[in-house]
């Protein structure tokens, strides 16, 4: 019912259209303030409650689960004291005594979801455990000490920092001379250290943890690969890309990634995929190397064959990063006409249909980046069964998914730009999507509290206003209350949005609009 009337003060012309913003591939922001979403699925820090070697069955563990925390704490202090005296003891059976004391402490630290880390630290556990890691110590002792440290490192950030003195030794035991259970336990401890603090990651990197961890990933030994990959994914997660750049250049790493993604079980593949996530998110070198290998194909296959949410999340994310990060991915590897491209679109559709919100969202993001490719890519998506699905999601999905879906649909309607040229419309797509009712979804985005979504909505409105044949655009926009939605920006503090909305209203609903139609 709005009569836009007539406005005499003209404003800046519209500078941006979807072609300039939505038409480009979008990478994930390197900085995040939200919760790390992977955490809810795979924790950044992991407690080690059952031994790696799977040899030992902890008979006592079940009996003590209900113990009072205070008892546990005092027992822990005592255990550290005992360890100290065991270490001081030089007589007969010293070795057994030490291992026994270590086991005692380790059991206490493995018993509950909330290990008594604070008591252990107060009692001076780190120094004594570091001593236990000295070169030449028997494997059993090394293993127990590293295990204790693993669980101490799983504490809060301050507690993790207490491990600093032990780090050089933990790293030293990652080497090829160590037995694999020892190396793996040390990797686990270091993975915890790298879990949530950039400063500690830097310390580990300076002390040379990267290369030995990377080498542990090379042979195919399930649990070693899994642990090493997990620790590496923590170690390289930045935001500084240096570690990721270094990792991909380590001899054999790329091959190992390809091999594991091809053959490994879901669980190991999950950890490897997380490594790929961070490599592709942070390092351009890595992205380009991964794209040139078979990784895209493998990721697509994994998505097609697996139904494990844990695996699908990092795989989708990697795929998205690679496509967003390197034009080669879209233009050469996923070029239209190849089977892999069809498969990729099919797996995205599979994820869009999934019940899992996170898969839907990630898949929509990936698809929006493919939709930012060539006209042929757009046609491929446009003619797939994705479109009805997307139109439905645009009107009914939760906000974050709607926004990603809007990027896809917007991208489908503009041809790619070359150099400075202004993007042009793909009229067929625009007309048909608008006819199928996508405009209200975009106008809803204009009304949303999210300014990027609002920008996207405005850009799409601009396409409709400019592009719909026979000047139908303005009337469609008016009918869906688009003028009112745009007028919300009349005095908005974001200058870009304000200018865009105001100039659209002026240009298409200015004096001539009132005169011509009414």
């Amino acid at each position, binding site marked *: 019912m709005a009569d836009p009337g007539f406005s005499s003060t003209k404003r800046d012309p519209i500078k941006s259209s979807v072609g300039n913003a939505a038409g480009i591939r979008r990478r994930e922001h390197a900085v995040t303030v939200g919760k790390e979403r992977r955490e809810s699925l795979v924790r950044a820090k992991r407690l080690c409650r059952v031994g790696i070697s799977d040899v030992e069955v902890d008979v006592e563990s079940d009996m003590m689960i209900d113990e009072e925390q205070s008892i546990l704490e005092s027992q822990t202090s005592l255990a550290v004291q005992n360890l100290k005296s065991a270490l001081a003891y030089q007589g007969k059976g010293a070795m057994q005594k030490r291992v026994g004391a270590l086991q005692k402490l380790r059991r206490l630290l493995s018993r509950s979801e909330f290990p008594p880390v604070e008591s252990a630290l107060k009692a001076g556990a780190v120094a004594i455990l570091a001593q236990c890691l000295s070169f030449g110590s028997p494997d059993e002792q090394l293993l127990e000490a590293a295990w204790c440290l693993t669980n101490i490192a799983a504490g809060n950030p301050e507690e993790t920092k207490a491990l600093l003195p032990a780090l050089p030794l933990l790293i030293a035991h990652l080497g090829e001379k160590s037995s694999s259970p020892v190396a793996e336990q040390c990797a686990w401890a270091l993975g915890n250290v790298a879990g949530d603090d950039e400063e500690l990651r830097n310390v580990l990197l300076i002390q040379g943890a990267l290369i030995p961890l990377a080498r542990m990933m090379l042979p195919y030994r399930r649990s070693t690969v899994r642990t090493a990959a997990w620790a590496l994914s923590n170690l390289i997660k930045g935001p500084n890309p240096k570690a990721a750049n270094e990792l991909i250049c380590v001899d054999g790493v790329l091959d190992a990634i390809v091999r594991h993604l091809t053959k490994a079980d879901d669980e190991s593949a999950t950890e490897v995929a997380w490594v790929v996530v961070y490599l592709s998110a942070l390092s351009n070198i890595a992205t380009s190397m991964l794209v040139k290998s078979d990784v895209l194909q493998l990721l697509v296959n994994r998505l097609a064959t697996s139904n494990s949410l844990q695996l699908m999340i990092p795989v989708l994310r990697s795929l998205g990063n690679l496509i967003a990060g390197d034009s080669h991915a879209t233009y050469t590897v996923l070029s239209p006409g190849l089977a892999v491209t069809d498969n990729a679109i099919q797996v995205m559709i599979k994820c869009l249909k999934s019940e899992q919100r996170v898969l839907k969202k990630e898949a929509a993001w990936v698809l929006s980046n493919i939709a930012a490719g060539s006209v042929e890519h757009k046609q491929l998506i446009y003619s797939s069964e994705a479109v009805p699905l997307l139109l439905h999601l645009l009107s009914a999905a*939760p906000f974050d998914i709607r926004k990603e879906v809007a990027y896809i649909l917007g991208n489908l309607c503009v041809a790619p730009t070359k150099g400075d*040229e202004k993007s042009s419309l793909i009229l067929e797509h625009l007309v048909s999507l608008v006819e199928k009712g996508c405009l209200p979804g975009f106008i809803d985005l204009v009304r949303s509290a*999210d300014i990027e979504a609002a920008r996207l909505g405005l850009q799409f409105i601009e396409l409709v206003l400019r592009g719909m044949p026979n000047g*139908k655009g303005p009337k469609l926009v008016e009918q869906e209350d688009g003028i009112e939605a745009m007028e919300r920006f009349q005095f908005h503090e974001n200058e870009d949005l304000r200018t865009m909305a105001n100039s659209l209203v002026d240009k298409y609903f200015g004096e001539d609009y009132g005169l011509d139609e009414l």
Partner: protein
Amino acid sequence: MEWNPQTRQFLSDCFLHTLSPAPEPRRRAESSLSEASNLPNFGLAVLRLVAEPPNSIDEQIRQSAAVNFKNHLRLRWSSEDNPILEPEKQQIKTLIVPLMLSAPSKIQSQLSEALAIIGNHDFPKSWPTLLPELVSSLQEASQSSDYVKVNGILGTANSIFRKFRFQYKTNDLLLDLKYCLDNFTAPLLEIFLKTASLIDSAAATVPPPPAANLQPLFESQKLCCRIFYSLNFQELPEFFEDHMKEWMSEFRKYLTTSYPSLEGSGPDGLALVDELRSAVCENINLYMEKNEEEFQGYLNDFALAVWTLLVNVSQSTSRDQLAITAIKFLTTVSTSVHHALFAADGVIPQICQGIVIPNVRLRDDDEELFEMNHIEYIRRDMEGSDLDTRRRIACELLKGIATHYGDAVRNIASAQIQSLLSSFASNPTANWKDKDCAIYLVVSLSTKKAGTSYVSTDLVDVQSFFQSVIVPELQSSDVNGYPMLKAGALKFFTMFRSQISKHVALQFLPDLVRFLTAESNVVHSYAASCIEKLLSVKDEGGRLRYSSADIAPIFAMLMNNLFNAFKLPESEENQYVMKCIMRVLGVADVQLDVARICIEGLGSLLSEVCKNPKNPVFNHYLFESVAILVKRASERDPSLVSVFETSLFPRLEIILSNDVTEFFPYTFQLLALLVELNRPPIPPIYMQIFEILLSPDSWKRTSNVPALVRLLQAFLQKAPNEISQGDRLTKVLGIFDTLIQSSSSSEQGFYVLNTVIESLPYEVITPYISHIWAAIFRELQKRRTVKLLKSLLIFISLFLVKHGWSNVIDTMNAVQPNIFSVILTQFWIPNLKLITGDIELKLTTVASTRLICESPVLLDPAASVSWGKMVDSIVTLLSRKEQDRVEDEGDMPDIAENVGYTATFVRLYNAGRNEEDPLPDIKDPRKYFVASLSQLCAHSPGRFPNVITENVETANQEALLQLCNTYNVALV
């Protein structure tokens, strides 16, 4: 400027004098201050004055200094021109926080704003100490429960965090946000919870503490909520997710608890608590929109809390802001994935009765606005600027629920409408607002059909509603009784105009004319608007539904009432009435005598607005009315031209001589219209205007240029002989030369040139041609924009079809030997495909065809490559759709913009120029092209097909063949 007793005295005196009621000392003080503000350390000195103890400097002086300090910072903190230097900045940053916190409230608010200005530029990267300082002060103030300080700090934090609400998400912004989150979220939650517990214990105290004790606590919570909004705006931060429970349980408390001692203490007390509640509603609305997954667990409780709250708030006449934000939250829920909350039995009727209807009902504020500020009322009621009114938001909620529960909403709403109408029927005097409410619901919940002005509703049957509800109002004999109901009825008529059949509408047209005399500004504006819109209704096929015959019976009364409406108080410049006049003049059959009356009426309005142009919309329609009257009446009766001239010339002269610049573009357009309506020879008075037209001063304002070009074209066409005399043509071409030098006006320059070429005999132009080419080549050297290239091709084509190819080639080559072939190969051939517009396409096609079929230069076998490429380009131009061959250069309008209201060019729709077709004899350019080509080929069989195969792209060869088949010709 050094801080010493002299400076202190000087500044203190100055600020004292700035408060003086006497203008002389005040001005002197202001100019001394503005001079001193150029000295280094001026800002610092003023800040030190603000910091002086209260007993030594009067608070008024310090306050005025604080204002000055803030403004100084706004201008100079990071300006190009004489900015504050780094050492001074450092000192200011060190001083300002503690100073602000200890200042009395009026000074505190100024310093807080000043701090926010610094923050906008420097925070956080160049001011790393600010946030830690705020945090530690907050903790100190919190420990001593010093809420003046607490709120000062929170206020500052609120303003420096605001940017997170409107800037785009970039890595830089996220880094800043992360920094703020890392430092501020924990202390924020801490103070929020502490204040909450203070409020709780105060609420539990008997007798309750005085309102004054509670007030700062609520103020503080409100600030915390606003900060919450800013920090959560971009995405949900980890800290807030981890502590959602703490925040949400307090939020809920404020929605469900009442605080009688504060709320009952007066309107300010209630307003403050409501502000907190509104801020809470905005926060939960944000979560609902963006983080509904994480928020889900709290949703049920909040939905219940909000709608319980709303049932109370809806009964109250004030509390608008809270009602609006709370309804918005429910609307968000209703359209979200959790809309099932509304599916429960009885919820929708309850919302409709308890929330929607009470908010849609007229309240005292609406009545007051209707009477006191009709412009604002109409803007909200009719033009959709009512986004933030309770009425509109309540309807939005209903529409929101209808997205998933359409049938339920329809049933309940139509039942409500019926019950409102029967309540009115039972006692019309007492219950007239119920009828208004019913009409409002029908109109607001109607939907518009794409591409038409067709509005429909499924709540009532439009025809019978019109007859039973609207007609009684329209037929009411007292045009001044129940004006709001009249306005509602007129609005309904306007909205559903397409659906009211013609004979029914005509039946009530006299009533509409009658309502033009209503005292209420809203009512006569709506009546004018309704007539105007009715006259614009188009039936299938775009034909206007109402003709001159339909309005003939009431025409005299209509015009009379329209012009009289301007005499009603506050409607002197009523834009709706003016627009209606324009529309009526566009439909009616205006006879000689009526035309005289109308032009006098419009003329005197024109004289009036010239004195002080205020309402641009009114003025625009006034000029449109004049233009359409002049145009239609003169076309019907050419003798009227002189009548119009007599009436208009003195008035237009006043505009020009009194420099009423905002009307210049209109004036030139009207003059152009008058020139065109004249039969040559045009009256001598026009040649005086022509002299004004040639003066360079007129062209300086970019807003005048399009109108002046239009006028110049009119002169060139209607008075070619006069223009050929003296040095007038030299001056005209001088204007052309100036215009093409700026890329914003180059097209306009070519319009002038094209008109010269079209209108004047070749002999007259000959002496100037080499200069024209030289000017064009000079521009080509400077820039080769699509616009310039297109203009060039159109000009050459026009030249060629008017005066022949040999004149084109010879005059070009006379400027520089052989330049024609350069222009041909570098500009003409490659850019031909850029041409848009039917006339332009025909013109350039014909010119290009003639060139390749007639000129020896191209027919020379040595030029066969160029010949072939030209064929290729012509085929591209003719065979591809415009959008496939033209790259849009961008949406840059032709005229330089951003010069404010006074200097914009506004096109007069009704004074528009009819496009002249320079080649009226050629109907179909495609046919012309292939026919000419085929003839040429027939003269030398076998020669051209080869050239075509070698030089024309394969796709275009196909297209050419198709064209030949279409027109049944062959290329041999």
